[in-house]
Structure formats: structure tokens, C-alpha cells
């Protein structure tokens, strides 16, 4: 398909990698964070780190909404799922995220009515087909996903579907980046900006990173050539002492984002004063809740949720890995107590969490070579 094949062209990939190698200053260390878990996944999948000189270090950021979801929220959601009148719906990845009493899949095995959906619109359809049940959609995701939840809620209102509600865990990427930038042990030189989030919010909102923190940002696509081009653009900025927001992914990311989607977000959601991120702690203004006008479709208002708080074990070093202070395999628990089968910390939970991605691709390669 056009726009896919050309961004995997080995000759172009090689050429871009060579240009990066030619441009880097030998005695300089470049620490670049890819904010988005999809980028982390592509970097490991295509082995991009191997194409880069050693003094370019890629640090994996907080961009996996399942990974940053506190276990307490999962427990709250599962408390709703356990109610006999409820059909609990969620995206596939959420199905394997453990709360203290197990995962949604395990709850299903114990008799709860838990179903995977590909879109919140499918959950709404389920509600219309099952008027005697309560259908709850467990919403997670950044600004990429929140518009589809918003659209679903707007439709639920206009169609008057009163047996549908949303348990909202939507989070915002910019406050998380700011939290990383503000942390005292921050050592990132530049950012690969998220691609799909930016189709919705645009490139402009990242300007504060360049202006206030003096760090360059390049919004990137997900193919190998996209990522290498973005890294090249960052290296050029850093070498020239520039800090700007550039858009490598202009084929889908408009500078000002998607206006109809932003309008829907503003109509349906308000910003929570604060929200807990696994690994990063409480971040103010970092998540969305349903506006009061939509309280009738808010699962948190409809069902009394326990409001559980669960803290991660002290030895888990997710925060340091998230901020780029430690590579995943230097966490004391990595690959021993904490594995994808038995995740202790946030970043091991989804396949795109920094630790899980590292475990699958690097760790597996190393142990296979033993």
C-alpha cells in the first residue's frame, strides 16, 4: 500500500541511518525519548537501535495508557463488572491487565459478563440490543481514543440510550510530558512526539516544550523510515542548538489538529483536577472525566465505585525507567520478579510498555544466544 511500502524501503532506511551516523558529534551523548508506546514497539520490532550510533540513546516514555493505569482503577472497574446486571466491555489489551482480584478475562472465567469490543460504538450497539442489561465501557487511552468515546456518548445522548455508561480513564499526554520535564533527574535532550495523538491535538500544543524547556520535538510516523527521519531531524536541531517543534508526520498530522474531534472532546469531557499515573504518581490536570451534562452516562456516578488505591512495591523502579534515568533491564526486578507473565510494575503490563517491549525483543534475543 502506498504510504506503507515506501516507508520501509531498505535503501532509504540505510541512507538515512548513514546520514545520522555522519552528522552526530562523536563526543556528544544524545538522549531521545519516544513518548508513544507505538514508537517503542516499532523501534524494537524493526531493530532500529542497531542502526544507530552508540551515542544515540532511545528512552521509552509514558505513552502506554494501559501501563500507566493504576491498579486501583482496574479494581474499581472490576467491581462494576462483577454486578449481575452489567455487561462490561473494553478493548482487547485491557482484558489482561491485572487488578488485585485478577484480570477481566479471569473475571469472565468466574462468570462475569465481560466482552471485548473494537470500538466504544460497538458497546453502544450492544446496549441498544440488550435493553434489560447495563452496558459499561471501560475507556482508556490518550487523545487518540478519547474522541471515539466522546462520539459514542454524543450518540448515546441523541439516541436516548439510558442503559449505557462509560468508566472514564482517558489521560492527556502533555501533562505527562511536563511532569517528566519537571522531574529533577530528567536528562532528555529531545522528544519524538506521538503520531496518532497529534492527528487529534495537532503539533502546536507541543510548542511549550521548545519554548519553556528548550528541547526540540519532532512528531513522527510509525514506520522505520519515519522514525529514522525524525531522529535525523532531532540530531540536526540539537547540533545547531535549535529547539523547535517539527512535523515529520505531516501526511496525517495537521498543525492545528482535528477540529471536529477537539470540539467533541470539549463538549463531552472536563479535565480532572488530578489523576494518578502508575509509575509517575499524581499529575494535576492530566486526565478527563465526563462533564456534568453527561452524568447520566458516567459509570462512576451510576455505580458507587470503591475508589481503591493500590501502591506498587517499593522495589519497582518504573518511575526511573519512565523518566529515562534507568534502562529497563537495570531495574532490580526486571526479568526476575517482574516478567510479562507476572508483571510487578506498570511497564511490564502491556506489550508496548517499555519493560515488556525490551523483555520480548532484547531479552529474548540475548537468552536465545546464550
Amino acid at each position, binding site marked *: 500500500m502506498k504510504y506503507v511500502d515506501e516507508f520501509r524501503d531498505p535503501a532509504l532506511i540505510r541512507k538515512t541511518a548513514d546520514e545520522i551516523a555522519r552528522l552526530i558529534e562523536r563526543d556528544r551523548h544524545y538522549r531521545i525519548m519516544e513518548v508513544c508506546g507505538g514508537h517503542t*514497539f516499532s523501534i524494537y520490532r524493526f531493530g532500529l537501535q542497531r542502526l544507530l550510533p552508540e551515542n544515540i540513546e532511545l528512552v521509552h516514555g509514558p505513552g502506554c495508557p494501559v501501563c500507566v493505569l493504576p491498579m486501583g482503577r482496574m479494581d474499581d472497574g472490576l467491581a462494576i463488572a462483577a454486578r449481575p446486571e452489567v455487561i462490561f466491555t473494553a478493548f482487547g489489551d485491557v482484558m489482561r491487565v491485572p487488578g488485585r482480584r485478577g484480570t477481566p478475562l479471569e473475571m469472565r472465567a468466574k462468570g462475569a459478563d465481560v466482552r471485548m469490543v*473494537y470500538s466504544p*460504538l460497538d458497546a453502544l450497539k450492544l446496549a441498544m440490543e440488550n435493553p434489560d442489561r447495563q452496558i459499561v465501557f471501560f475507556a482508556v487511552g490518550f487523545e487518540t*481514543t478519547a*474522541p471515539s468515546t466522546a462520539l459514542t456518548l454524543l450518540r448515546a445522548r441523541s439516541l436516548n440510550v439510558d442503559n449505557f455508561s462509560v468508566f472514564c480513564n482517558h489521560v492527556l499526554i502533555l501533562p505527562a510530558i511536563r511532569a517528566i520535564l519537571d522531574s529533577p533527574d530528567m536528562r532528555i535532550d529531545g522528544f519524538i512526539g506521538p503520531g496518532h495523538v497529534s492527528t487529534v491535538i495537532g503539533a502546536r500544543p507541543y510548542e511549550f516544550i521548545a519554548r519553556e524547556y528548550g528541547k526540540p520535538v519532532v512528531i513522527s510516523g510509525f*514506520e522505520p523510515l519515519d522514525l529514522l527521519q525524525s531522529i535525523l531531524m532531532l540530531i540536526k536541531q540539537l547540533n545547531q542548538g535549535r529547539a523547535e517543534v517539527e512535523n515529520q508526520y*505531516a*501526511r496525517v498530522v*495537521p498543525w492545528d489538529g482535528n477540529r471536529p474531534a477537539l470540539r467533541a472532546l470539549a463538549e463531552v469531557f472536563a479535565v480532572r483536577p488530578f489523576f494518578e499515573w502508575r509509575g509517575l504518581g499524581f499529575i494535576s490536570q492530566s486526565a478527563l472525566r465526563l462533564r456534568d451534562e453527561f452524568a447520566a452516562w458516567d459509570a462512576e456516578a451510576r455505580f458507587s465505585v470503591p475508589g481503591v488505591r493500590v501502591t506498587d512495591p517499593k522495589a519497582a523502579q518504573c518511575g526511573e525507567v519512565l523518566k529515562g534515568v534507568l534502562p529497563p533491564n537495570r531495574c532490580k526486578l526486571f526479568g526476575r520478579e517482574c516478567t510479562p507473565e507476572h508483571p510487578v510494575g506498570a511497564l511490564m503490563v502491556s506489550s508496548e510498555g517499555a519493560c515488556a517491549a525490551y523483555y520480548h525483543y532484547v531479552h529474548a534475543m540475548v537468552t536465545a544466544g546464550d
Partner: protein
Amino acid sequence: MRRTMKGETRERIASEGASDRASLGGSDSTPLRCVTCRDEAVLATVLALREAHQALVEDCSGQRALVAIDFTPEARVGDILLVHSGVAIARLDEERS
């Protein structure tokens, strides 16, 4: 792990007779996915416009689905859309690329 889940999801959706949305991007093992998105975003070409802000689209592996185009109202037959959880969130723009 992801591929297993996808298999399960598709089986389940097939058995429940839910929408064909699930199949989109299904057989392309190479993801245009972004975990930031909790789901994946897939490029798909518009085959036909349907009522109620919907479009029939086809992805690069030939899978078809009905998607909501409320956020890309300018979409026309032949356009390439970026589809995320059953909703088009962007239209590919050749001029900008």
C-alpha cells in the same frame, strides 16, 4: 501476545455477530498501531459513503469495515483515512506529506 489477543477478539466478535469493524487491519501483522492509542490506527481507503456519517473502507489487506466519519466529514471515495477504534481520526493529505 498481541497476535493471540487479536485472534481471540476476532473469534469472539464473529461468534457474537458484532460489527465487522474488528476485521479492519486484522491480517496486517505489521502494525500502524500506536499504543498511545490503546488500539491500533489503520490506514484504509474509502470505497463508499454511507448514511449516518459512515463510510465503507478497505485496508491494505483487503479487509472491509464500516467506520464513523464524523471527524473527517470531508472524506470522499478514494481518500485514505486513518481509522482508530472504529472512527476515522484523520484524512491523509498528499500535499502536506
